[in-house]
């Protein structure tokens, strides 16, 4: 377990007393109803009484309470004494079920006399609505009615919420900075195995050694001194490049075009990525670019066997804007605030999903990753991923490729190291892609897209991953809790430089925690949900066996052969690259797509026919029915779709409890053998409790006893076009026998 001590800085009483409005003071009952504040958390405003409306029939309508807006969250504190904690086996220490971190707010709607309006930060300064509906980035939906609150308080809380969650702000307003100022620097966790942060040379060297790669470490950017002048600002502090690339090559295009090492295949070939060169029209510049790229490709080819393939992602995958548009259509289908809406949308559910194209984007990414995997695994070709910025889709593809090829990344720390390497240190612009500062224009859920793809792999091969579905869901939630250094910066350079500036203003060294410090969010028990109980580490035997069995001829997966041998030799490649670089860059990939498709298909089929090794190559099934909706993430808050006492979680629980039983038996056996004590009767048959968990456990609550089933209400039968068949009788014969004969006699 990787947890910190049990109190990683949480639940320490804040040093300030109370920021509740003065008029509420004196009312002791209300006084106690403050949220538990985090260190550095400050209340901006509050209103009471506010009604929280719910469409969960269990809670019958609405709850009375107080609404707060702080520099971290919007928080609703119920007047009612909350039911015991039993219903919540999985709690987040940073925010509760009635808290919305400001950065988690997706959209706010105002309820103006039965009319609903989307609130934007520019409007709505004057008139406040009767109620607000908050759509969250983690798909929760809140409805608060402000009708009962005093006019002034209602207006104030509305404006406060809008200002702090929707208006553009500066980086230093992000709560992480106030938070970390007030917690003791997180103790260095000395866990084995640890997550590699890739913020120092040691981590990079370790990774290179592990993959037995052969590249050159560059320390030129060590102090980011070059970042500001010579190199573009997305480059990490340390990185590897092919041995043949010279240091002066970096200066040519601010480091763009330079192949950055990602990972080495056991055969020796490796995966590189780079940002594409700026578009130019002038012939001389173009020629220079061509020559430069050729040299870079040669350098990559030189890494192993002189084979290289450049994969231009900007050309073949959806754009950043496409991803954003698709996702915003997609998520809308889960932000449901009334039951009627839910059932109406149910009939057209599949086509609705399809029109958002989100699942198809996921499939495209996985497909592209399999394509790259094929080059590496089957052809042993070095790969250079090229993308405009070099830090979005190339992160998606490179991490997916590594996840499929390298079982190390399917462990929890391995996965976290991968995210550090490819995304955090790799320079993904989390700050703008996640829109923490409310400047919508560069928002795009690229990292979420990656997690979606990982989830597809996980659900298809649930035994291959050390982390669970819950882990992925929680990780996706953490993106919008602006407390972790992982997700709030645009580049490693920005992280280091803004920390430096902030530390100077505060006069002490700031240390914003990483999301990988899970003890900040969850206690030890909850952290167990992050692990996949089905995962089994590779046994020593398997390890040695595989080593011995690894066939020396590298073309492991070759088939009743249809793939042309060595088609991608680099000479040919540079020729195609020349074409690619010509002005408009019409992709030759477009024409190739059919054959690429067929090749991937064949590659998958060949892999599928072999016995599955969870510690080996892992490929996703890309067929229509195989790409699915991440139900836990998207449906967990919708009461209508909770299956109580069902879902795959029941299987997992059975396996877990059987394993525990086995463990006890094993201990008992050992005891017996040692003849220490008469054995203690430990195995009590598992309680047949009446509590039934939701299939989205651990997220939704449990139900005990009986409850009403969800009954579809709208059948829009008019839309089902059954034609003439619907009018026909089941039996073509008329009901003559008794209707006529006996009927008459009646």
């Amino acid at each position: 377990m990787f947890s910190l001590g049990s109190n990683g800085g949480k639940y320490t009483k804040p040093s300030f007393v109370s920021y509740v409005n003065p008029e509420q003071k004196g009312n002791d009952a209300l006084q106690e109803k403050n949220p538990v504040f985090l260190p550095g958390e400050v209340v901006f405003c509050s209103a009471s009484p506010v009604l929280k409306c719910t469409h969960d029939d269990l809670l019958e309508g609405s709850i009375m309470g107080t609404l707060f807006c702080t520099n971290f969250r919007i928080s609703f504190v119920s007047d009612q004494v909350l039911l015991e904690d039993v219903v919540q086996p999985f709690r987040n220490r940073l925010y509760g079920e009635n808290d919305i971190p400001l950065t988690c707010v997706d959209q706010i709607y105002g309820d103006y006399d039965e009319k609903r309006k989307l609130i934007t930060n520019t409007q709505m300064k004057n008139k406040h609505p009767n109620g607000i509906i908050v759509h969250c980035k983690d798909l929760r939906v809140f409805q608060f009615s402000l009708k009962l609150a005093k006019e002034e308080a209602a207006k104030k809380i509305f404006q406060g919420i809008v200002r702090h969650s929707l208006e553009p702000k500066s980086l230093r307003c992000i709560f992480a900075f106030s938070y970390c100022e007030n917690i003791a620097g997180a103790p260095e966790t000395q866990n084995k195995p640890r997550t590699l942060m890739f913020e120092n040379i040691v981590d990079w060297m370790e990774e290179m050694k592990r993959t037995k790669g052969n590249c050159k470490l560059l320390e030129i950017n060590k102090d980011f001194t070059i970042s500001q002048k010579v190199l573009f600002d997305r480059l990490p502090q340390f990185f590897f490049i092919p041995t043949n690339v010279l240091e002066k090559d970096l200066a040519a295009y601010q480091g763009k075009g330079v192949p950055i090492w990602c990972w080495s295949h056991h055969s020796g070939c490796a995966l590189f990525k780079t940002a594409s060169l700026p578009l130019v029209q002038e012939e001389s510049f173009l020629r220079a670019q061509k020559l430069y790229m050729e040299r870079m490709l040669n350098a990559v080819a030189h890494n192993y066997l002189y084979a290289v393939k450049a994969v231009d992602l900007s050309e073949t995958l959806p754009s950043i804007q496409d991803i954003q548009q698709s996702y915003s259509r997609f998520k809308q289908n889960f932000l449901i605030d009334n039951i009627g809406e839910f059932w109406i949308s149910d009939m057209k559910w599949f086509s609705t999903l399809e029109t958002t194209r989100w699942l198809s984007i996921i499939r495209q990414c996985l497909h592209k990753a399999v394509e790259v995997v094929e080059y590496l695994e089957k052809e042993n070709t070095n790969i250079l991923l090229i993308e405009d910025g070099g830090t979005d889709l190339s992160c998606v593809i490179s991490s997916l490729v590594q996840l499929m090829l390298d079982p190390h990344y399917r462990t929890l720390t391995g996965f976290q190291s991968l995210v550090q390497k490819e995304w955090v240190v790799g320079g993904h612009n989390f700050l703008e892609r996640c829109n923490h500062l409310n400047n919508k224009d560069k928002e795009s859920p690229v990292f979420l897209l990656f997690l979606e793809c990982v989830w597809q792999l996980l659900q298809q091969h649930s035994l291959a991953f050390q982390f669970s579905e819950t882990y992925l869901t929680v990780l996706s939630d953490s993106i919008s809790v602006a407390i972790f250094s992982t997700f709030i910066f645009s580049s490693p350079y920005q992280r280091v430089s803004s920390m430096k500036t902030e530390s100077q203003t505060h006069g002490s060294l700031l240390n914003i925690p990483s999301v990988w410090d899970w003890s900040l969010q969850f206690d030890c028990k909850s952290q167990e949900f992050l692990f996949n109980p089905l995962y089994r580490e590779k046994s020593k035997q398997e390890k040695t066996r595989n080593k011995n069995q690894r066939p020396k001829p590298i073309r492991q997966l070759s088939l009743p052969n249809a793939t042309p041998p060595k088609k991608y030799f680099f000479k040919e490649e540079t020729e195609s690259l020349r074409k690619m670089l010509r002005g408009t860059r019409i992709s030759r990939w477009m024409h190739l797509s059919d054959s690429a498709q067929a090749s991937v298909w064949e590659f998958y089929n060949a892999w599928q026919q072999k016995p599955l090794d969870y510690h080996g190559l892992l490929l996703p099934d890309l067929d229509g029915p195989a790409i699915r909706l991440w139900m836990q993430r998207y449906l967990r808050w919708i009461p209508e779709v909770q299956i109580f006492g069902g879902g795959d979680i029941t299987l997992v629980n059975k396996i877990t409890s059987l394993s525990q039983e086995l463990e006890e038996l094993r201990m008992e056996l050992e005891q017996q053998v040692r003849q220490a004590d008469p054995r203690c009767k430990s195995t009590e048959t598992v309680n047949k409790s009446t509590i039934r968990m939701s299939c989205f456990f651990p997220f939704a609550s449990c139900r005990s006893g009986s409850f009403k089933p969800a009954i579809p209400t709208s059948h829009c039968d008019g839309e089902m076009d059954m034609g003439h068949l619907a009018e026909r009788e089941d039996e073509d014969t008329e009901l003559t026998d008794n209707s006529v004969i006996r009927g008459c006699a009646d």
Partner: protein
Amino acid sequence: MELLTDAPLLPGEERVIDKDIIYICPFSGAIKGRVLISNYRLFFRNVDADPAVTLEVPLGAISRVEKMGGASSRGENSYGLDITCKDMRNLRFALKQEGHSRRDIFDILFRYAFPLSHGLQLFAFLSQEKFPENGWNVYNPMQEFRRQGLPNDQWRVTFLNSTYELCDTYPSILVVPYTASDEDLRRVATFRSRSRISVLSWIHPENQAVITRCSQPLVGMGGKRNRDDERYLELIRATNRTTSKLTIFDARPNVNAVANKATGGGYEGEDAYQNAELVFLDIQNIHVMRESLKKLKDIVFPNVEESHWLSSLESTHWLEHIKLVLSGAIQVADRISSGSSVVVHCSDGWDRTAQLSSLAMLMLDGYYRTLRGFQVLLEKEWLSFGHKFASRIGHGDKNHADADRSPIFLQFVDCVWQMTKQFPTAFQFNEHFLVTLLDHLYSCRFGTFLFNCESMREASVRPQPPHWHAPQPPAVSQGHWSDGVTVVRLFQEVKKKTVSLWSFINSEPSSYSNPFFTVDLSHVLYPVASMRHLELWVSYYIRWNPRIRQQQSPMEQRYKELLALKEQYLKKLEELQLSDRAPQVFPRGPHLSNSASPSPSSPPPRVTRLQTPF
């Protein structure tokens, strides 16, 4: 080429023809081989044994055989046979054009695939298979009613229908309100379509609410009323004190129920049935379901629709129908568990009604979720209450376009599968069981699904094509055929002449059981009937596609491993305890004795590396 002498044959199965042929596989192209046709199956094997390609189709699964291409057709493999199957696949075979080589095989296939159209017996009557279990004993109606606590002071068992006089499509033993006399029942029968009166299917053990089933009332255009029928439903309501209003679930869409008046049917009017509430469940008829499945087949066979999978799936409406059936059953179960009795009917009460009552019973009663209990459920709600298996499947009948055919039972099994998917620990049987069930729904190897109703089964009948009008001169004359007679009495009843599917299943129950099954009798199982949760049963509908991995689920595999381990541990513990009592037998030490060879010197078994990563 060598004859297929080693082809697997069942006892009673006989070879008819053995021939060189080319199988045109939709996934891997033309494969040269040899085909064997017996009176039970079509069996194909390729010439090159590596990789071996075999194909096995019970002839019962064939719905249509057509000739493809003519003697003068050009192109490779353009002359042959095209076979459409009931189990979601099509087969193509090519033959040599010279010498009319397909004539004999076509004729034989046509005759043996559709034996009833040719005066032949279904294979179930020829089979000589023997099993240790006798599946015909699985269902005993009296025993099942006793299990439900019947008869009691409100409900009695009547033998009024013992000779199928009251209703020829109902079982012989019926449970009716104690207060209704046999005479009442006879009078009510006149007002219900095909005399299918409302009788009890299931009673709640605590609140005594009941599911009763029937057919539509014969209201007709004139809006006829029948006091006996009205009084009868009132008697049913009154059997349970907590039922203030009897809920009548009419499975059909409202418009269809109205339209049925034109043919003499209809629904219970509000005025006529005072203490009743009528709810329409909007489930479409058998023709709509048939077309829906046809569309589904189009998008999954041979290749799975790629680019617009979800919208294509939606446009088949298959899952939408599943949703409506499930949602109807949920409503029935919900009424029952809240203590309110229900009546379920559709038009005739043997298709949608069977689906609804059996699914609701599956939700309410854990017994039906066991392997045996499920068989009882099928025997009771489907077989004894006259779901027309013979007509719906069209056993042995060449008329592939018969409008009576419809995948109603398949749809029900799909609903059950959806439930097992949502509650993976609640059912004792596994997916393999459901698939086997469907395979033998078509295979005609067992007697279980061959007939339309209990009276046909009991009357020792020879199954007939569903629309047997004028007798055709049978190819092989057997028995006596007479004009206009639809039932030909033969020597023995079906239970003696054929084997039950349950004999086959229950002789090897382990391969059909779900290791995760947890007994839970106390809860009602409410599936979620939302498209968000419903999914296509890929491992059934797309199982012929080699890209669909047909493997045991990894979780199941893991669980079985752990269970085996537990066995091992327990055995060892037991041994150790025995050795404790007789401490001199084995020298003590770190060695655990291996259960197979209890010698102390045997190497320590796997225990040492059994640390589970939990």
